[in-house]
C-alpha cells in the first residue's frame, strides 16, 4: 500500500485548497478532486418531500397556521376571577353571619351593623358594652375615678364624666376583684400616702392596689360605675341603721380594743371616711365642747376600738356616725 501511495503529491496550500473546493481539478490533485465531486454530488437531487406543516406553508404562504406553542394554563387563567369571587363571597357570608349573631367585636359589630342597615332593609344589632353588675355588698363597689377629675368632695353618686362609666369602669371593677383575691388589705398609712404605682389598665396617677383603690374609692379605669354608686347608697343606708344599733351596744359592754379582724376592717374603713370625717369636724368640735374627753373623731383617737357590727358584715359604722353626728357623739362620750 505504501508503495502505491503517491508520496510525490505537491504540497497543499490554501490557494490550491480554494481551487479544489471551487470545483476545479488542479494537476496532481485529481483523486482528491474526484472525491470532493463525489461528496458534492451526494448532496444533489430533488428536494425532499416536506412535512405536513411545512407543505402547508409552501402552498399557502406564511400566514398559514404554524404549530404554535400551547397556551400556558388557559383554564387557570380563566378560573382565577371565579376563585377570588368565591373567596370574597364566603368571607362576606361568615362576617354577616357573625354580625347577625352579635358575635363580632364591638367596633366591628357597629361597622357591620351600620353598613347593613344603610345598604339593606335588614337590621343587625350593634353590640354595646354592658356595665358589669357588681354585688352591692362587695368593697369594690366603692371604686371611683380621681384621675378623671373626681375629688373626695364630690357627691358619692355622681361621676365626673358620664361617658367613663362604660368600659373603663368595667375594667376597673374587674381588676379590683382580681386584686381582692390575691392581696390582703394594705395599711392605710401606705396606701393613702399618694405614691403613684405602676398601672395596668387605668389612667396615670390612679392607685392600682385594691387597698389603695378601696381607700381612695377609685378604680384603675378612672371611672365609677352606676352600680357602684347604687351600692354606696345602699351601704350608707344600712350603715346608718346598723350604726345606731352598734352605738347602743358600745354604750354597754364594748371592750377597749377590738380583735385583729376588727383592726383590719377599721383600717380599711377609716381610709374611706377620712374625707367625710373632715366635713364633720365642726360638728365634732361642737360635741367636744360638751365632752372634752371625746377627740376630733372617735376612730382617730382610738383606731383599735370598733364595734361588734363590723365582725359580721364589714359595714362602716363610723361612716354612719359621720352621717348622723348627733346621736353618735353623744353616745360615744360615755365610752371615751
Amino acid at each position, binding site marked *: 500500500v505504501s508503495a*502505491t501511495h503517491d508520496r510525490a503529491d505537491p504540497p497543499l496550500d490554501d490557494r490550491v*485548497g480554494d481551487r479544489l*473546493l471551487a470545483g476545479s481539478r488542479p494537476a496532481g490533485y485529481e483523486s482528491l478532486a474526484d472525491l470532493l465531486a463525489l461528496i458534492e454530488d*451526494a448532496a444533489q*437531487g430533488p428536494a*425532499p418531500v416536506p412535512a405536513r406543516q411545512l407543505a402547508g406553508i409552501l*402552498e399557502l404562504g406564511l400566514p398559514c397556521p*404554524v404549530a404554535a406553542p400551547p397556551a400556558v394554563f388557559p383554564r387557570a387563567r380563566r378560573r382565577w376571577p371565579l376563585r377570588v369571587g368565591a373567596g370574597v363571597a364566603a368571607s362576606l357570608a361568615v362576617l354577616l353571619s357573625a354580625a347577625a349573631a352579635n358575635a363580632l367585636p364591638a367596633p366591628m359589630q357597629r361597622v357591620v351593623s351600620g353598613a347593613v342597615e344603610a345598604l339593606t332593609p335588614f337590621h343587625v344589632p350593634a353590640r354595646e358594652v354592658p356595665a358589669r353588675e357588681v354585688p352591692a355588698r362587695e368593697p369594690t363597689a366603692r371604686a371611683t375615678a380621681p384621675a378623671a377629675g373626681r375629688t373626695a368632695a364630690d357627691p358619692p353618686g355622681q361621676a365626673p364624666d358620664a361617658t367613663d362609666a362604660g368600659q373603663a369602669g368595667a375594667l376597673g371593677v374587674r381588676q379590683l376583684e382580681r386584686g381582692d383575691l390575691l392581696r390582703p388589705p394594705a395599711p392605710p398609712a401606705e396606701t393613702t400616702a399618694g405614691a403613684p404605682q405602676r398601672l395596668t389598665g387605668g389612667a396615670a396617677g390612679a392607685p392600682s392596689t385594691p387597698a389603695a383603690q378601696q381607700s381612695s374609692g377609685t378604680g384603675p379605669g378612672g371611672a365609677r360605675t352606676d352600680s357602684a354608686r347604687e351600692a354606696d347608697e345602699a351601704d350608707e343606708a344600712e350603715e346608718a341603721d346598723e350604726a345606731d344599733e352598734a352605738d347602743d351596744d358600745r354604750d354597754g359592754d364594748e371592750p377597749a380594743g377590738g380583735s385583729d379582724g376588727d383592726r383590719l376592717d377599721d383600717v380599711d374603713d377609716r381610709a374611706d371616711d377620712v374625707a367625710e370625717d373632715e366635713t364633720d369636724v365642726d360638728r365634732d368640735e361642737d360635741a367636744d365642747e360638751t365632752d372634752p374627753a371625746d377627740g376630733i373623731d372617735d376612730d382617730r383617737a382610738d383606731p383599735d376600738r370598733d364595734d361588734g357590727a363590723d365582725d359580721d358584715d364589714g359595714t362602716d359604722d363610723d361612716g354612719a356616725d359621720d352621717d348622723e353626728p348627733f346621736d353618735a357623739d353623744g353616745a360615744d362620750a360615755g365610752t371615751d
Partner: protein
Amino acid sequence: MDARPTDAVLRAAQLGQAWALRVLYDDLAPKVRGYLRARGAAEPEDLTSEVFLAVFTRLDTVTGGAPGLRTLVFSVAHARLVDDLRRQARRPAPAEYVPDRDPRTEPSSEAEALARLSGDRVRELLRRLPPNQRDVLLLRVVSDLSVEQVAAVLGRSAGSVKQLQRRGLLALRTVAADARVTT
C-alpha cells in the same frame, strides 16, 4: 420566475409569498439534507423539514441578502444536527431492516458499483476525518459557503476555519489514496 434564491426572492419570501418560499426550499433543501445525511443524521428528511419550519418563521430577521439566508439556514441545520447526534448518543434509535445495507448479504457487482457513488460511501469516507474537519469540508463543498460563512455557522474564527479546511483536505487526500489502493 427566478429559480435561484436571490435578494428579490428573499424579500418576497419575507412578505410570505408562497412561491418565494418554494424557491428557497427547492434550492436549499437538497443541500441541507446532503449535509445532514453526510454528518450522520438519523432522519435527514424529517430534520430538513424542521430546519425550514424554523427558518421560515425567522425570515424577518435575515440580513445580508441571499448569502445571509444561506448562513441562517445552515446555522439552524447545524444546531439541529448537533441535537440529533446527542440524542442518538443517549438512546440509539431503532432502524428498520434494509436488505441493501445488510453486510451479511452478498452484493452484486452492479450494486457494489452504485454503492461506491452513493451517499453511504461518501459518508463512510468522511467518517475517517475528525468531526470539525468534516464539518468544514461539508459546509464548504455541499453548502457552498465561504470561509466567513462557515465560521459564522460553526462559531469559530475564519483563521480557525482555514486551518481546519487545510488539514481536512490533507486527510481527505490520504483517504482518497487509501480508497484507490483498496479498491
